[in-house]
C-alpha cells in the first residue's frame, strides 16, 4: 500500500463538491482511500487515521486543501492525484470563462439594490452563526441548513431575528417553502391554503408532498430547526412564525409538525395554536397531550396530518390511493421466506421518516433498536450492527461527520443496505427515497446499485424490499420514472411512509400476519 498527502494552501472549496471528487476518484482501480477536504480538525484527524499525515497537514488551516490518496501501487496513486487535479481545475476553467459578477460576502450582497431577502446558509457550523448574524443585521432572513451551531448562538440569532422582525430558520433546518420557493431539500408542490411550521425536515417534505397528492397546496412551509422546541431554545422561531402565519391571509389551515417537544414548550405552542383563529393540525408523532385541545386536531402520523389538513381546508374528506402498491412481491416473498427471516431492517436517509416508522412499530407492540432511539432501552450495542427490528438514520451526525447528508449522497447508505440484506435473520428491507430539490439527481439509481449487489449475493434467498417515497410529480428527478424502476426491481412502493412501515410491521416476527 502506498500513501501520499499533499496540502494546497488557500484553496477553499465547499465540502460537498470535495466529497464528490473523493467519491469519484476512489472508484479508480487499485485506489483504496481518497480524502479531498479542507484541513479542518476533523479532516486532519482522518488523514492521521489513514496513517498519511505530515507536518504540513498538522500546520494547515481550514482554508487549506488536503489531498490524501492510499493506493495499491504507484501507478494508481499517480492516476488518482491526476484525476483530483483534473477535477479541481475543471471547476476553475468553467468559472473563469464566464464574466459574471462575483461576491464573497453577505455585506456586499446586502449593498445591492436588488433587495436580497433570504440567506441560504450551509457553510461549516463553526462559521455559520457569524454569517447569519451579518445577514440579520442587514435585514436578510435566514435559512440555516448547517448543524454544529451552539445553543447559545442559536438563541442569540433567534433573539436578533425577533428584534428585527426577521425569519430565522434553523440551525439544522433542512427544508422550507417560502412564497412557493423551495429552499434546501424541498419538493415542487402546488400553492394552496395550508401553512406548515415544522421542526422536522423530511417531515415537512413528506406532509407537503402528501397534501399535493391530495390535490391541495401549501401557502408557506417554514422549518424552525431540530432544536427549536427544546427547553433551551423555547420554540422561539416556532412561536414567532405562528404569529406571522396567523397573519397570512393566504393561509387557512395551519399544521404544526414536530418530534415530541419539551413539555413546557409544547404547552406554549399549543396555547399559541389555539389563539390563531385558524384551524390547526398538530402532529407530535404519537405523543399524547393532556390538555384542552379545543380547535386543535391532534394526529399521530404524517399521512393522517395531511388528510386532516386537506379536509379542514376543502371541507371534504379526500382519500389517498395506494396507487403504486402491488401484492405480488409480498406473496412471492412469503412463499420463499425462510424460518429464520424474522426482522425488519430500516435504513433511512430522512430522520423523521425513520422516527415515524419506529413509532408505527412501537404502536403495534414490536420491539425496536435504533441509532436514534426514542427511549434509552431501544439503542444498539454497536450502531454498525443491526439486531432485531433495526432502524438506522444514516443522516445522524455519527454517520455524516465530514460527509454530505445521505439525501445528497445516498451511496453512503449502500454498504449498510447490502450488509443488512445479507443478514440471515433479515426478512424486510425498509427504505426511503427522497426526491426534490437538494436531493441526489437519481436516488433510485443509486439505491438499485446496492439492491443489485445484495440480490446477487443473496442468491436463492429472498428478502422483501419496501420503499416509501417523498416526492411529487413536479420534482426534477421524475416521480413516475423513479417509482417505475423501483417496481421493476421487485419493490413494494407505498404512497406514504406510515403505510410502508405498517406493511413492514405486519411482516415482522410477532407482527399481525
Amino acid at each position, binding site marked *: 500500500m502506498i500513501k501520499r498527502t499533499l496540502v494546497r494552501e*488557500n484553496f*477553499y472549496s*465547499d465540502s*460537498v*463538491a470535495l466529497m464528490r471528487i473523493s467519491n469519484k476518484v476512489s472508484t479508480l482501480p487499485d485506489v483504496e482511500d481518497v480524502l479531498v477536504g479542507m484541513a*479542518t480538525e476533523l479532516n486532519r484527524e482522518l488523514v492521521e487515521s489513514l496513517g498519511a499525515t505530515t507536518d504540513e497537514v498538522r500546520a494547515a*488551516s*481550514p*482554508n487549506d486543501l488536503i489531498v490524501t490518496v492510499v493506493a495499491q501501487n504507484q501507478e494508481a496513486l499517480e492516476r488518482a492525484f491526476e484525476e483530483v487535479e483534473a477535477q479541481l481545475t475543471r471547476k476553475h476553467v468553467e468559472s473563469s470563462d464566464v464574466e459574471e*459578477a*462575483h*461576491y*464573497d*460576502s*453577505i455585506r456586499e*450582497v446586502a449593498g445591492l439594490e*436588488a*433587495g*436580497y*431577502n*433570504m*440567506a*441560504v*446558509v*450551509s*457553510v*461549516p457550523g*463553526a*462559521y455559520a452563526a*457569524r*454569517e447569519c448574524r451579518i*445577514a440579520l443585521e442587514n435585514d*436578510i*432572513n435566514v435559512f440555516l*441548513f*448547517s448543524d454544529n451551531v451552539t445553543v447559545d448562538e442559536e438563541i442569540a440569532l433567534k433573539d436578533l431575528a425577533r428584534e428585527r*422582525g*426577521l*425569519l430565522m430558520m434553523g440551525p439544522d433546518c433542512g427544508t422550507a417553502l*417560502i*412564497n412557493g*420557493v*423551495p*429552499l*434546501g431539500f424541498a419538493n415542487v408542490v402546488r400553492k394552496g391554503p395550508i401553512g406548515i411550521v415544522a421542526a422536522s425536515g423530511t417531515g415537512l417534505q413528506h406532509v407537503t408532498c402528501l397534501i399535493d397528492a391530495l390535490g391541495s397546496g401549501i*401557502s*408557506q412551509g417554514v422549518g424552525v430547526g431540530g432544536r427549536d422546541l427544546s427547553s433551551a431554545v423555547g420554540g422561539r422561531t416556532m412561536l*414567532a*412564525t405562528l*404569529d*406571522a402565519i396567523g*397573519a*397570512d391571509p*393566504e393561509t387557512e389551515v395551519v399544521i404544526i409538525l414536530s418530534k415530541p417537544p419539551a413539555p413546557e414548550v409544547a404547552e406554549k405552542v399549543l396555547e399559541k395554536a389555539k389563539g390563531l383563529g385558524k384551524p390547526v393540525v398538530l402532529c407530535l408523532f404519537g405523543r399524547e397531550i393532556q390538555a384542552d385541545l379545543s380547535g386543535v386536531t391532534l394526529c399521530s402520523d404524517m399521512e393522517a396530518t395531511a388528510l386532516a389538513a386537506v379536509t379542514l381546508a376543502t371541507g371534504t374528506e379526500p382519500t389517498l390511493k395506494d396507487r403504486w402498491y402491488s401484492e405480488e412481491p409480498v406473496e412471492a416473498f412469503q412463499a420463499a421466506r425462510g424460518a429464520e427471516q424474522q426482522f425488519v431492517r430500516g435504513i433511512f436517509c430522512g430522520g423523521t421518516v425513520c422516527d415515524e416508522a419506529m413509532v408505527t412499530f412501537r404502536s403495534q407492540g414490536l420491539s425496536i433498536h435504533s441509532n436514534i432511539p426514542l427511549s434509552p432501552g431501544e439503542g444498539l450495542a454497536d450502531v454498525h450492527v443491526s439486531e432485531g427490528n433495526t432502524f438506522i438514520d444514516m443522516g445522524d451526525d455519527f454517520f455524516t461527520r465530514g460527509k454530505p447528508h445521505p439525501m*445528497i449522497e445516498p451511496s453512503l447508505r449502500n454498504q449498510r443496505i447490502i450488509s443488512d440484506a445479507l443478514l440471515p435473520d433479515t426478512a424486510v428491507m425498509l427504505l426511503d427515497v427522497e426526491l426534490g*430539490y*437538494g436531493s441526489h439527481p437519481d436516488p433510485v439509481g443509486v439505491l438499485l446499485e446496492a439492491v443489485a449487489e445484495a440480490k446477487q449475493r443473496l442468491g436463492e434467498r429472498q428478502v422483501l424490499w419496501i420503499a416509501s417515497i417523498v416526492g411529487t410529480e413536479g420534482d*426534477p428527478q421524475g416521480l413516475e420514472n423513479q417509482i417505475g424502476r423501483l417496481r421493476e426491481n421487485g419493490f413494494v412502493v407505498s404512497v406514504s411512509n406510515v403505510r410502508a412501515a405498517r406493511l413492514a410491521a405486519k411482516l415482522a416476527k410477532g407482527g399481525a400476519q
Partner: protein
Amino acid sequence: MIAELWGQPIKAVNLGNKDFYEDLVSQGVEAIHLDWKPVANGEHALIAALDLLDSDPKVARANQTALERINAAQTFLIDIQPALEAIPGMTADTILHAGPPITWERMSGPVRGAVCGGLIFEGRATTYEEAEALVLSGKVHFSPCNEHSAVGPMAGVITPSMPVFVVENRSQGNRSFSTLNEGLGKVLRFGAYGDEVLTRLAWMRDVLAPALKKALAQSEGIDIKSIAAQALHMGDEVHNRNKAATSLLIRELIPLLLEADIPTQERIEVVRFINSNDHFFLNLSMASAKATLAAAEGIEGCSIVTVLCRNGTDFGIQVSGLPGRWFTGPAGDVKGLLFPGFTEADKNPDLGDSAITETLGLGGFSMAASIAIVQFVGGEPKDALVYSRKMYRITEGSSSTYSIPMLDFRGSPTGIDIRKVIETGILPQINTGIAHREAGIGQVGAGLVTPPWECFSEALLALAQAQS
C-alpha cells in the same frame, strides 16, 4: 415583521453548498452564490477580535476620520535640506534604514552594503571593513526611516549629510522626508559602495541638491499629489513605473531651474541627470505618501494601516490606532521576472519603504492604471484589473484625487483596514523591485509580493485588546 415576507419575491444569497443555488436558479429564482471561505483563515481568536471591533462604533468613526484626513492631504515639495538639519531625531551618529527596526546581525546583504557605503560617504570609514568595525563598536545608531517621518527605497539608508526632499502636507502641516533617487545600476540603495557610487552621492550633495534648492526657492512648492494623480492617467502607478510622473516633474522644474541662479554647466548636468532616470519621481511619490498617511496616525480605535515596509529581513506594518507599534513577520519572496543572467538564488527577500505607495492605494493597488507595468512584473493586462478590484475589498474607501481610468475613473482603493484583510484573507498587493542578495550588484528584477499574514493577525488581536 416576518409577515411582511409573505408575498415578497424571494431573492436569495447562497453560501455553502452550490447545489442549493443551482436549484434556485433552475426555478427562476433570483439568486447569488457567494464565493465563500471561512473568514480569518478559520481562526477563532481572530473571528472573536473581528466581532469585537466590528461591533464598536468608535472603530468605524475612527476609520472614517482616517480616510477623510488621507483624502484631504495636500502634499508639496518645498525644499531640500541635509538630513541632519531636516529630519527630527536625526543625529551625527544615526543611520536611518528601510523597514522595521533591525540589528546589524540580522541585516541582509544590500542593507549592510548601503550602511557601510553611507559611513564611507560620511567620512567615518574608508573601507567596508572599517565601516563594519565601526558598527560593531556600537558607535552607530540604527533607526527605521518611518520612525522619523522619512522613507527610503530599497535599503533606504539616510546618513546625516545626505540631502533630503522636504514634503509638506498643507492640510495638517506635517512634513516628510526622503533621499533623492540615484538612478539604476550600481547605487547605494541596492548596497553598492564603490567609487562610482560615492562620487555620484557627492555630486548629488554638492551640485544637484543646491541647484534644486535654488529652483524650489523660486516657487510656492511643487504639488506632488497633483503630479501623481495626473501620472496615474498616463500609465504610471508611481511605484514601479514613474516615467510619466518624472516627465511632469521636469516640466515643473525646468522654468524654475532656468530662473534660478545656477552655473550653466551645473544646470545642464542637473537636467541631464533627472532626465536620464525614469524613477526620479519615486522618492517624491514615497515622501508624499508618507506625509499623507502620517496625518492619519494615532487615531484611537482606528484599524487603518499607516505603514507597510520591509528591511530585507522583516516585513513591518503600523496601524493608526496603535501608534508607534510594529507588527512584523518574515519578508517575502518577490515573485516576478528576473533580468537576464540572474536566477532565483540571487534574489534578496522583500526590501524597502516604497510599499508606502501601496499603503496609500497607489503602486500595486493601482495596477489597473498602469497596464504597461504588468509585463514587467510578469502578468497579463487583465491581471492588473483583477489586482486593483480586489484591493477595494480591503480598503475603507477610495481616493478623492487619485483615480483609475480603466475602472470608470473610480478613486484608487484607499485606507487598508486590517479588519478587512483578516476577514477576507486578502493581503495587500505590492508591486516592487527585487534587489540582489549581495551588496552592490543592484536590481535583478521586479515582481509582486504580499506581506506576511501574521503582521495583520497580530495587529488585529492587539487592536481588539486595546479596544476591549
